[in-house]
């Protein structure tokens, strides 16, 4: 009881804990949004408090709200504060919040680097664990680069708990920072044989992911994985390994052969369905890669199919689904084995689960034959009627069309039947696929001559009942079929029984409600019908009937002239005038039928529109050279044809698989060509490219023309090409059952031409020519194919960057950025500068928490880092380097004219140069050093500066001594008894590639002014050729800010301080600030070591204290685009200097 009471009061102290919040939200179901906005206000208050427990509680609540969909990105900085709490309880909450809401766009993320690094090296494995977990969610390229080395070290941690996490997170690091892959890979590989199964499994996971993207780089690991596969009993690991082999076998068929046996053993023995499924999938992949050359793999296929049948027969829907899915993969290469199970697949069509039915449909596609096509389609049609939900029905519709039209109507024996099916499909409510049906109707009517009479009859009936088709708005999709119907009736009007009736149907007022492109076809084909009727009537010498028809047109056409659609209007007015003219002639009893019919004389044949373009250009022929004008005209005309059904074309392109090989490309091209071939407009606009070529003067000289001629090429070549095409088709058919329906039509056209419809011989003759031309082009494809090959590789694909050869030995340059401090490489990029800040920032909260530790911590704080350049560069152009440094630091902070200005706080600025006058470094590049400078404050008048020295040369550095030119104000604390000219020895030596940190204490008299100290580091560089004495100049910069110590202050104390009146005042104003106020404050806080006392709207009071006890109070106000800072301080000079420094910081905001 007592415990409960205590707990209760603790809870109250935290205002509202997570449970209260959740309960509150549940109790405010009606006004949830209002309640939550209240809570957010409270949380904002809590975040302002200095108590880390309160903050953590607030962040925890925010994380919950984030899940409910509220934006919490504004609290990113507070989250970082909580992440850097020393208590695991809070740290855990902070990292959770970060992993939930940080992403690459989060700007404060760069501030976390050092905190994370610290946590990674924490003695508590749970601190490390929580940091790794968090990092896995929000790792950015910068974090990856800066932390790669730390994480790599953790891969060899003593605790498996850390090792496995580090191994897994390495994958994320690789993705963000691909350069780390090669240096880290040997260790990763090592982990495959880690004694801890968890670590081993993690390594398998990572390598499996890597290898799936770029398998060729991992072939050398195959033996190791093979060993693992045969020895491991962990199904989780086995599945990954088997999957990996699935990716490797296509590259190495011998591997496949080796795999078959162990895999089939596993299939026989395992009881885990997931493993069985993985094995079956990999066996399929292996068999596909082996498709030729392995004699006795039919047993394996049988085994797979048999196992899959068991899955499909299982009552578990999931297994059924996966069974069908895997079956369809086998179908591509071994259709026969699958066809044996047609009964089972048909059975699945009746399944209550739609996703299973869809899978079964996919399979059916590959199972139809001439024999069973009608039966299967009939079954599907009954499903169409039963189907609820348009999605599934549409899917059925497309599948029916796909199945029937596949391999160019290969399985259709009766086209009347097919036309009826298409007409039946038009009765479908609300389908989106009207254009598909229309395309089929056109295709069949144009290409199957024998069916035209039947098709025309059906189409005229369709036009007659057009009101049914186009009545309700939700059927709009289906009205596309009227497009086809009108065109077919017009073009093949000689087959019409009752042309007049059809004509009337097409001129009904209702027609004007159809979409414009359909009306346009109506108008055009009305004239074709009219011509046919005139001819008929004139032959029958029925003059009055002929005049009646003309009159009908004159009466009805104006409704189209008024159309809002330009195309309709234009055609209608043109035709109206024509008809009026005819009417005049008729009045004079002049026979006109012949002339009107002449408008549409000639047979239209589908021609592959771009076929001629595909003909290879003979060597020595320059097509761009002018032969004569007409040729170029006809060329440009080729560009015109456009697909009639735009949507369709798009639909077609989307689902394309990424691996476009040559065949795939050829297929696509053919499909496109095919579409255009089906386009009546195309055919009309350029009736016969061949003819034009022939007519063009001088073209005969071009060999191309000969190839284009259908007759010479086709007649001798026909039987052979026919066989070839057939083989080809079957092969493709298997590979790409689903997506290539259109292209196949053309092939079929060829076949039909010779084999099936002998009556169509003339037509198919014409057809074959383009088809053959296409084949010629196909051979040429590689060249053309190049660009689209590149398309397939998405340049943004993150995995591409990981396509790295792992077998090459590591070069020195590839080493990972050294962990704690910059190396030459890192220093090149400006962001790096930010990193040190981060650390400062993240530490701030701690400081608040525990004031007494403050100083100690400060000492450790890295003030700023001055990356070094490569010595060579430096050496040569010492001066140039400075500007660079400046630029770097400007990003963060104001810079001084002279030297790179470090961060606000005790700062050391070094110029890295190699002693001039010693030519050796230039050529040999010996003593490269990275200086990483750390400064910190201590005691009243002392500042500690930490310098990180890194030896980037090949020489061994020893006897290092650091010396500065003391100023009146600042002096280097030297060992007792030494003079001001003596340097302070660096207490270590540096072998090549090693870095270490040295600390130097400076005594400062007055802190009111910033100052710079010049210094030199002298050392002896020793290498094979001997030792040289060298030195390096640098500058140390102490800003006023560096003398400040972040000190929290409560608002009452703050008020008292201001009231006391013994402070001097000064102010600055900076314009052009775009940063949010919150970030601005954050920036001031850690760049200038202030803490926020109180914040009201866009106004905040801040406080800080110098090491010598000066109070510094700020009032920061944010205007529209400007910010003004009023400061009060016991020392006016210090204040004005501080404000100047701040101004420069703000100027970069």
């Amino acid at each position, binding site marked *: 009881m007592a415990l409960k009471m205590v707990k209760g009061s603790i809870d109250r102290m935290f205002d509202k804990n997570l449970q209260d919040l959740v309960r509150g939200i549940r109790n405010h179901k009606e006004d949830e949004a209002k309640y939550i906005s209240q809570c957010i206000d409270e949380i904002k208050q809590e975040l302002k408090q200095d108590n880390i427990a309160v903050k953590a509680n607030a962040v925890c609540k925010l994380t919950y709200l984030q899940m409910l969909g509220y934006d919490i990105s504004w609290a990113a900085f507070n989250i970082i504060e909580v992440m850097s709490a020393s208590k695991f309880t809070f740290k855990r909450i902070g990292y959770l919040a970060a992993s939930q809401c940080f992403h690459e766009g989060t700007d404060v993320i760069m501030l976390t680097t050092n905190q994370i690094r610290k946590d990674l090296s924490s003695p508590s494995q749970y601190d490390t664990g929580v940091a790794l977990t968090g990092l*896995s969610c929000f790792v950015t390229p910068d974090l990856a680069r800066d932390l790669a080395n730390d994480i790599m070290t953790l891969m060899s941690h003593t605790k498996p708990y850390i090792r496995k996490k580090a191994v897994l997170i390495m994958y994320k690091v690789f993705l963000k920072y691909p350069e780390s892959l090669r240096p880290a890979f040997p260790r990763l590989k090592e982990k495959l044989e880690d004694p801890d199964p968890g670590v081993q499994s993690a390594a398998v996971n990572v390598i499996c992911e890597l290898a799936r993207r770029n398998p060729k780089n991992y072939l050398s690991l195959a033996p190791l994985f093979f060993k693992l596969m045969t020895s491991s009993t962990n199904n989780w690991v086995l599945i990954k390994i088997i999957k990996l082999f699935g990716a490797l076998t296509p590259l190495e068929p011998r591997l496949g052969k080796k795999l078959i046996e162990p895999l089939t053993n596993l299939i026989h023995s395992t009881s885990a369905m997931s493993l069985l499924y993985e094995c079956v999938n990999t066996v399929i992949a292996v068999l596909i890669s082996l498709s030729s050359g392995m004699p006795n793999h039919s047993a394996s296929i049988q085994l797979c199919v048999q196992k899959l049948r068991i899955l499909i027969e299982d009552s578990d829907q999931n297994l059924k689904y996966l069974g069908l899915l895997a079956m369809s993969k086998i179908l591509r290469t071994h259709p026969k084995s699958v066809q044996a199970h047609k009964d089972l697949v048909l059975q699945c069509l009746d399944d209550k689960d739609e*996703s299973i039915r869809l899978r079964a449909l996919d399979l059916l596609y590959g199972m139809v034959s001439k024999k069973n096509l009608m039966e299967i389609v009939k079954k599907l049609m009954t499903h169409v009627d039963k189907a609820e939900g348009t999605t599934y029905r549409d899917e059925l519709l497309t599948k029916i069309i796909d199945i029937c039209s596949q391999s160019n109507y290969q399985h259709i024996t009766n086209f009347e039947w097919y036309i009826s099916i298409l007409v039946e499909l038009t009765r479908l409510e609300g389908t989106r696929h009207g254009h598909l049906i229309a395309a089929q109707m056109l295709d069949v009517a144009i290409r199957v001559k024998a069916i035209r009479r039947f098709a025309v009859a059906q189409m005229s009936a369709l036009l007659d009942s057009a009101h049914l088709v186009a009545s309700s708005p939700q059927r709009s999709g289906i009205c596309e079929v009227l497009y086809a119907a009108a065109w077919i009736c017009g073009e093949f009007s000689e087959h019409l029984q009752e042309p007049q009736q059809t004509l009337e149907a097409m001129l009904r007022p209702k027609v004007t409600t159809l979409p414009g492109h359909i009306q346009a076809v109506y108008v055009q084909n009305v004239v074709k019908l009219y011509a046919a009727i005139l001819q008929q009537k004139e032959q029958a010498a029925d003059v009055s009937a002929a005049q009646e028809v003309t009159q009908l047109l004159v009466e009805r056409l104006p409704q189209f002239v008024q159309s809002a659609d330009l195309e309709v209007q234009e055609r209608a007015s043109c035709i109206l005038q024509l008809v009026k003219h005819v009417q005049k002639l008729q009045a004079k009893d002049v026979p006109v039928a012949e002339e009107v019919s002449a408008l549409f004389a000639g047979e239209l044949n589908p021609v592959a529109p771009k076929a001629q373009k595909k003909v290879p250009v003979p060597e020595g022929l320059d097509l761009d050279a002018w032969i004569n004008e007409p040729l170029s005209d006809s060329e440009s005309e080729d560009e015109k044809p456009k697909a009639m059904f735009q949507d369709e074309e798009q639909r077609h392109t989307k689902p394309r698989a990424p691996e476009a090989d040559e065949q795939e490309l050829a297929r696509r091209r053919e499909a496109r060509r095919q579409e255009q071939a089906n386009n009546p407009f195309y055919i009309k606009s350029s009736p016969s490219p061949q003819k034009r070529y022939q007519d063009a003067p001088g073209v005969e000289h071009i060999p191309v023309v000969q190839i284009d001629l259908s007759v010479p090429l086709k007649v001798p070549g026909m039987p052979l090409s026919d066989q070839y095409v057939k083989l080809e088709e079957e092969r493709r058919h298997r590979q790409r059952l689903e997506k290539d329906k259109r292209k196949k039509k053309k092939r079929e056209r060829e076949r039909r031409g010779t084999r099936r419809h002998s009556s169509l011989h003339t037509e198919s003759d014409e057809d074959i020519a383009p088809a053959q031309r296409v084949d010629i082009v196909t051979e040429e494809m590689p060249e053309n194919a190049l660009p689209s090959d590149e398309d397939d590789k998405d340049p943004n694909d993150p995995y591409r960057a990981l396509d790295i050869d792992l077998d090459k030995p590591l070069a020195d340059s590839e080493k990972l950025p050294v962990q704690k401090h910059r190396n030459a490489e890192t220093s090149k990029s400006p962001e790096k500068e930010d990193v040190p800040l981060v650390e400062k920032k993240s530490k701030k909260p701690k400081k608040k928490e525990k004031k007494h530790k403050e100083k100690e911590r400060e000492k450790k704080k890295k003030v700023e880092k001055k990356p070094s350049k490569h010595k060579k560069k430096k050496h040569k152009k010492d001066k140039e380097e400075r500007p660079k440094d400046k630029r770097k630091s400007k990003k963060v902070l104001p810079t001084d004219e002279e030297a790179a200005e470090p961060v606000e706080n005790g700062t050391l600025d070094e110029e890295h140069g190699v002693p001039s006058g010693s030519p050796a470094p230039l050529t040999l590049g010996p003593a490269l050093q990275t200086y990483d400078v750390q400064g910190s404050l201590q005691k009243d008048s002392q500042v500690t500066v930490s310098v990180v020295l890194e030896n980037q040369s090949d020489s061994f550095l020893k006897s290092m001594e650091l010396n500065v030119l003391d100023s009146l104000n600042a002096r280097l604390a030297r060992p007792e008894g030494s003079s001001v000219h003596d340097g302070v020895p660096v207490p270590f030596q540096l072998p090549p590639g090693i870095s270490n940190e040295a600390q130097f204490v400076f005594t400062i008299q007055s802190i009111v002014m910033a100052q710079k100290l010049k210094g030199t580091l002298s050392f002896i560089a020793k290498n094979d050729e001997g030792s040289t004495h060298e030195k390096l100049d640098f500058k140390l910069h102490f800003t006023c800010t560096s003398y400040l110590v972040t000190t929290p202050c409560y608002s009452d104390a703050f008020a008292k301080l201001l009231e006391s009146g013994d402070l001097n005042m000064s102010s600055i104003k900076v314009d052009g600030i775009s940063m949010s106020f919150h970030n601005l404050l954050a920036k001031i806080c850690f760049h200038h070591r202030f803490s926020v006392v109180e914040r009201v709207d866009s106004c905040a009071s801040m406080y800080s204290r110098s090491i010598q006890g000066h109070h510094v109070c700020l009032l920061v106000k944010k205007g529209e685009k400007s910010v003004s800072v009023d400061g009060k301080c016991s020392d006016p000079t210090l204040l004005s200097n501080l404000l100047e420094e701040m101004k420069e910081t703000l100027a970069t905001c």
Partner: protein
Amino acid sequence: MMQFMLLFSRQGKLRLQKWYVPLSDKEKKKITRELVQTVLARKPKMCSFLEWRDLKIVYKRYASLYFCCAIEDQDNELITLEIIHRYVELLDKYFGSVCELDIIFNFEKAYFILDEFLLGGEVQETSKKNVLKAIEQADLLQEDSKPRSARLQNCMKS
């Protein structure tokens, strides 16, 4: 590799979300809305897999909660179901016959457990015992972690 995991209730309320690929908040919300709708619209007898964009969705319902994972094309659906089930088992062990309220009121624990089980979209620990051990030890470090009875009380009160 798993792309993300969502837990949501039958009413479509999100209970947990874990993203293993970096996405903007906007995109996350859009995906969540879309998937919650799609999955809830499916009939109970339907199989647990669906194809969505270029990913595969694997989901399973436990009592009033849907566990929904997105995996890549080549990943194994069955093992993903296994992962979901394993996670449910872990929750169950940790909370002692877990209910939706446990996850609502201790959502951070649900995340911690998930983080010990999966990392970066991959299984990091296949042993249930090890996961629970890690969680318990981490909990011990949380000095002020509440006794389990407090959690149970919460459960009962609501």
